[in-house]
């Protein structure tokens, strides 16, 4: 928003006011429908919150739709203690954070060679790299499990970080390579003629321009890794190493949770990602607008 105030700022602002005046009844109808849709999308979240704060007796007496009578943290504390949730949260944050940073770096390096360098056969390199993210993980999980045991990385968080860095960077490489292949060539050539090395061009010309896209990728990678299930489930067998999804999935599979405890578990499971998203939603849209100004 602040950016529009500079340069040609005055005109678009007046036009925006005009546009606001022009909104007709059909525009309001669409707005109402969109808000209704948004409401429907949020219902399951509301149900989770509603039931996480009930006592088990209340749930069985009043059902899932009734408002909680009081504010009970019984389910939340029971779940927290059973799973050592603090440790589990830390594991998820450590794994997802490491993967997000490393996978963005790897994507930039790959995309620089493919999109800017236009290496021969880049189309095929891209297809092969895309395999990392397109292969069904079931096709890798058995051999990966076997290999991790051979090199002593089985049941370590490092193994999961390495595997997902490679898997996530496939999408990043694909997206960044297609962005970079449209990169203004004169800009690159000018830098090269001025004697900048390839590394300097990458750091000082390419990276600043694609930083908004990198920020978006960082958020995507974090969330995607946080939500992964199959490979962490197979690799992280000991309780000390488990992620949020694995801890929840294991508990759910054992059918040991009552309804309020599973909703408390869901609440604790979704809160971190929702918080992360709300914090970064601003960065996301700011990054995207900044990209559009060019």
């Amino acid at each position, binding site marked *: 928003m602040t950016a529009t105030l500079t340069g040609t700022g005055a005109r678009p602002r007046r036009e925006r006011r005009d546009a*606001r005046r022009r909104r007709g009844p059909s525009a309001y109808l669409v707005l109402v429908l969109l808000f209704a849709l948004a409401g429907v999308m949020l219902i399951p979240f509301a149900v989770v919150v509603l039931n996480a704060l009930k006592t088990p007796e209340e749930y069985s007496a009043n059902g899932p739709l009734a408002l909680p009578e009081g504010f009970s943290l019984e389910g939340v504390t029971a779940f927290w203690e059973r799973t050592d949730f603090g440790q589990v949260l830390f594991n998820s944050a450590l794994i997802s954070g490491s993967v997000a940073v490393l996978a963005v770096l790897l994507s930039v390096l*790959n995309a620089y060679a493919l999109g800017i*360098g236009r290496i021969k056969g880049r189309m095929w390199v891209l297809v*092969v790299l895309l395999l990392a993210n397109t292969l*069904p993980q079931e096709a890798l999980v058995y*051999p990966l499990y076997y290999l991790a045991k051979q090199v002593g990385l089985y049941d370590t968080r490092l193994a999961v970080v390495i595997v997902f860095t490679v898997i996530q960077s496939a999408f990043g490489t694909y997206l960044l390579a297609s962005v970079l292949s449209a990169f203004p060539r004169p800009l690159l050539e000018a830098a090269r003629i001025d004697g900048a090395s390839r590394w300097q061009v990458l750091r000082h010309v390419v990276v600043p321009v694609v930083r908004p896209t990198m920020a978006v990728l960082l958020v995507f990678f974090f969330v995607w890794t946080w939500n992964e299930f199959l490979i962490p489930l197979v690799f992280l067998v000991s309780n000390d190493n488990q992620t949020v999804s694995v801890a929840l999935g294991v508990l759910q599979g054992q059918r040991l949770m009552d309804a309020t405890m599973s909703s408390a578990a869901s609440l604790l499971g979704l809160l971190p990602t929702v918080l*992360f998203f709300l914090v970064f939603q601003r960065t996301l849209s700011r990054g995207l607008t900044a990209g559009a100004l060019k």
Partner: protein
Amino acid sequence: MSGKATRAAGRERLGYLPYLVPGLLLFTAVIGVPFAMNVATGFTEWDGVGTPEWAGLANYARLAGDGEFWASFRHNALVIVAMAIAPTAIGLVLAALLTDLVDRHFGPRAASVLRACVYLPQVLPIVIAGVVWSWLLNPQNGAVNEVLAAVGLESLAHDWLGDPATALWSVLAVMVWVQIGFPLVVFMSGLQRVDPSLYEAAEIDGASWARRFRHVTVPQIRPEIFVVLLWTTIASLKVFAPIYVLTKGGPGGATSVPAYYSYQNFFDKTDVGYGAAITTVLTLIIVALTVVFLRAQGQGPEGER
């Protein structure tokens, strides 16, 4: 002269090769080698312990005649509709409405709040989405049935995930709910790039919203549409977690998909060779589809320009 120039250009390109080395090495260790091992396992009879026994094409011959396997593929076709085609179409219309109508007439705040609401299920771990929807759809006092009862449609109340007739459709509906946010966010970021004067010009010319959508919005974000369609189609071909959490492929295989069927063979039936064969077939389909998509993407827009 041109020969020298191309050679210089070739050397210039070779200089970028080192940037690809870490990516390629990691890829080989994490994807290449394990995948080759998996393909090899597909030609063997192996229960997960001991030495695999060479079986040639026996697993593939079995696949060709396996009704369960083909049924899982038919389910997967519907999953592509629910996870790729429907969310892309809905996401496109929503992105256009939010950018072109809500943002311009009601301000960017309204647009970004709506976008956040629709995107929210995307940040939900799929395991948790599964737990949540399992109760919402629960036959005993599940929220969906309670709502139906509350509005007097008690006759429609149902064991949504337990009845073979509705299980697949219920799972598909959950997938649409989970998936819409991804295309929406990508398309909206693409639309930021579009010059607003294009819309204003079209509006002044009296173009209806539908015409602007067809002739301005869609052509402008064609690259994003390709990326999203490819990505979501691939995701739907290897869909596993929602099936695992919601129905475990049941009832009676009514919601089984190839990825889940292979999992059953790996871990429940410990028929590792057969499971590996299933995942190899699935991989071949996905690779073929990716190549077709990338070819179409490489040719389409440039051919028109």
